[in-house]
C-alpha cells in the first residue's frame, strides 16, 4: 500500500469528495494558494500546502479565497451549508476562531436544534493546532476543549495519515458541523493510506497498543509521544495500553472505561492548559463511571496554565514531553 503524508492524505480525501459531490466547496484565506506569487493560483494551496492543486482541478467557483475576515468565512459557510452546499471552511490557525466564534457556537452549532431538526449544517471547519512551531502565543494553541464543550459540534483530532483521510471523508459526508483540527507537526508524518475512499466513524477510539498495566490516552500530536513512552517502558516490563480517541466529541467513553477496567491505571496526555482540558474531562468521567477499577489516582500530563511561550526552550518545556509522561506512568505504577 502506498505511503502518504498526513498533509497529502487530507488533500486526497477532499479531492475525492469534491469529485464525488459537486456541492463540496472550499473557502478560506489563501486556500486557492499562490495568487500573486510567481507560481500563480493553485500552486501552494493554503498556508501549509494541504489544498495544493485543488484550485487547478476544481476552479475558482469551488475553491475560493476570501478576505482576511474569519467572521465572513464562517458566516458565508454557514449560509452555504444551510442552502445545500457542503462547505469546507479553513481558519488558518485555530487561534483566530475568536473573531468568528458567534458563527460557530451560536449559529452553526444551533441550527439543527433551533429549527426543530428541519435544518442541516453540513459544514467542516478545518484548522491547524499546536505548539512546537515557534510561532508564538497567538498561533500555537490547541483549543479543542473549547469546541468539545459546545453541544452541536463534532470535534476531530487525527493522529496519523490513515486516520486523517478516513476522518475527513466522514466529516465531509456528515450533516452536522465538524471541527477538524490538524496538528501542524504531523503534516510530514507518513502512513500507509489506501488510494480508495474510506470512512472512519466518529466516536470510535483506536487502541494503538494493547497493554495490561496502564492506560495512556493521547490526542493529536500527543499520541505519538505516548506511544514512544509505552515502547520505552515495555523494555522495563511496564505494559502500557495506548488509546487514541480520534474524536473528542463524540467521545468513545466505552473503550476508555473498558481499558481502565483492565489496567486500573490512567494517564491522560493533553496538549492544553490543565483547567477544563480533555485530560480533566476524561479524569472526571473515569472517576465517575470507573472509580472501582482504579488502583491509583488518575494522572494528567498537560501544559501549564500559561500562554504558549515564544522562547524555544520554554515552548519545549510547555508541551507534554516523554519525560513528563514517563514520570506520570511511574507515579501511577507506584500507586
Amino acid at each position, binding site marked *: *500500500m502506498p505511503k502518504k503524508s498526513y498533509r497529502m492524505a487530507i488533500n486526497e480525501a477532499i479531492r475525492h469528495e469534491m469529485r464525488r459531490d459537486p456541492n463540496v466547496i472550499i473557502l478560506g484565506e489563501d486556500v486557492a494558494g499562490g495568487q500573486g506569487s510567481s507560481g500563480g493560483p493553485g500552486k501552494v494551496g493554503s498556508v501549509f500546502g494541504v489544498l495544493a492543486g485543488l484550485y487547478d482541478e476544481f476552479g475558482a467557483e469551488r475553491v475560493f479565497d476570501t478576505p482576511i475576515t474569519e467572521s465572513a468565512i464562517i458566516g458565508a459557510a454557514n449560509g452555504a451549508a444551510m442552502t445545500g452546499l457542503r462547505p469546507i471552511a479553513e481558519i488558518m490557525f485555530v487561534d483566530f476562531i475568536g473573531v468568528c466564534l458567534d458563527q460557530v457556537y451560536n449559529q452553526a452549532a444551533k441550527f439543527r436544534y433551533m429549527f426543530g431538526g428541519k435544518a442541516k449544517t453540513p459544514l467542516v471547519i478545518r484548522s491547524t493546532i499546536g505548539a512546537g512551531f515557534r510561532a508564538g502565543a497567538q498561533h500555537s494553541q490547541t483549543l479543542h476543549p473549547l469546541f468539545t464543550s459546545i453541544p452541536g459540534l463534532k470535534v476531530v483530532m487525527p493522529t496519523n495519515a*490513515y486516520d486523517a483521510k*478516513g476522518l475527513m471523508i466522514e466529516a465531509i459526508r456528515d450533516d452536522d458541523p465538524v471541527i477538524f483540527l490538524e496538528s501542524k507537526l504531523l503534516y510530514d508524518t507518513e502512513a500507509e493510506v*489506501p488510494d*480508495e*475512499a*474510506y*470512512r*472512519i*466513524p466518529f466516536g*470510535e477510539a483506536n*487502541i494503538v497498543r*494493547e497493554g495490561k498495566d496502564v492506560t495512556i490516552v493521547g490526542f493529536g500530536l500527543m499520541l505519538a509521544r505516548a506511544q514512544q513512552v509505552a515502547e520505552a517502558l515495555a523494555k522495563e516490563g511496564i505494559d502500557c495500553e495506548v488509546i487514541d480517541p480520534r474524536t473528542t466529541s463524540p467521545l468513545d467513553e466505552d473503550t476508555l472505561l473498558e481499558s481502565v477496567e483492565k489496567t486500573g491505571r490512567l494517564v491522560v496526555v493533553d496538549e492544553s492548559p490543565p483547567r477544563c482540558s480533555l485530560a480533566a474531562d476524561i479524569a472526571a468521567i473515569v472517576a465517575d463511571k470507573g472509580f472501582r477499577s482504579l488502583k491509583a489516582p488518575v494522572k494528567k500530563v498537560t501544559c501549564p496554565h500559561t500562554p504558549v511561550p515564544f522562547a524555544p526552550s520554554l515552548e519545549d518545556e510547555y508541551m507534554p514531553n516523554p519525560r513528563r509522561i514517563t514520570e506520570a506512568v511511574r507515579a501511577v505504577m507506584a500507586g
Partner: protein
Amino acid sequence: MSAITPIKMPKWGLSMIEGKIVEWHKKEGDALKEGDDLVDVETSKITNVAEAPTAGILRRIVAQPEDTLPVGALLAVVADASVGNADIDAFIADFQSRFVPETDEATISGIPTKTLQAAGRTIRYAAFGEDKHGVPVLLLHGYSADLNNWLFNAPVLSEARPVYAIDFPGHGGSDKDVADGSAVFLAAVVKDAMAALGLSRVHLVGHSMGGAVAVRFAADYPASVASLSLLAPAGLPGSIINLDFVTGIAEGRRAKDIKPWLEEIVADPNLITKDMVEAMVKYKRLDGVEEALLVYRDRFAAGADAKAIAADLPKIPAALVIASHNDKIVGAPDPARLPSGWRVVFMDKTGHMPHMEAAGDVNAALLAHMG
C-alpha cells in the same frame, strides 16, 4: 560440522520480514523426526508452526518465546548426539557473526500487484514466477478475502510454473461493483481476466466462494481448465453456508464485532492476530464494500448458484477437494454425492482456511494434483 543443522526463522510469503516466537513444541535434548512440529511463529498475518527439516536431536534453542526475529535468523540447532557442545557453540557463534537480515524492496512493500480490466471493472491481481514455463495456476480467493490469502502458497506453487491471483469485485483492490454477485458473473470475470493475462488454460484453484466459482467456470469452460482444486469449497452437495458468519462480516464495523467472526474461520482462534482483524476493519471501511458483501450474502442465501452447480457436477470428471469436518463456515461436502473421479482429502485439524492453517500439506497436495 556437516552434522549440524540450523533451524532458521522461516519465510512464509513475500511480505514476511520477521516473525515472533510463540511457543516451542520440543525442548532441548528431544529427539526429532523430520516434519515434527517444532515451534509456533507469529507473523503480521497469521501464526503457523515451523516443522523440523531433518531428524536429529534438538541440541540448542537460541530464540526464546516473545523474541521477534528477522527471516533467516537462527532459532535453534539440530545435531546428532555425537556432536560436541563446543562444536555447537562454535556453529552458533559463526552463524550469528555472519547473519545479515535481508531487506530488499519487494520484501518490505509486500506482494506487488497490478490491475487489469475484466467484465467492465478494474481487477487487481498479482503474478508470481512469470519467467517460469508450464501451464499457469490461477488462484481464486473466498468471500471477504483477497489475494493476500495466498501468501503461504503462491511462492511455493510458482517454483515451477507461473501463478496468478486475482481479487474478485468487491474485494481487495478491485472495483466494488459486484453486479448480481452470482457465480456466473464471477466466472465471467475469471474468463475476462484470463483473456487479459493471455492465459488460455490454467490449473484452477478456488477457496470457499472462489471454489464455487471455480466449479462454475470448469463446467462452463472445460477447455480452459487443466486441473481443478477446491479448498474448503462452498456450494457442493453436503456443504452448508454459515449465513450468520457471512452477515456478521458484512455488517461488522468495529474490531471487537469482527474478531469473533474471524475466529470462526480457523480451528485455533489464537491464529487470528490483531493485525488480521485490523486489516479486515480497514477493508470494511472502504466505500462500497459493505454493500458489495451484502449483495453476495443475499446471493448465498438464495442458494440458486449451489443448486446449478450440483446439477452440473457430472460435466466435471475430476477434481481435488480439500475440506475439513471442523469447517464452521461451509462444513464438509459429501464425497458420496460427488463424481467418482473426484478425490476428497479431509484435513480435520484445520478449519475453513486449510491453505493458511496447513500450508505445507495443501501445497504438496496441489502440486501432486497438478502433476
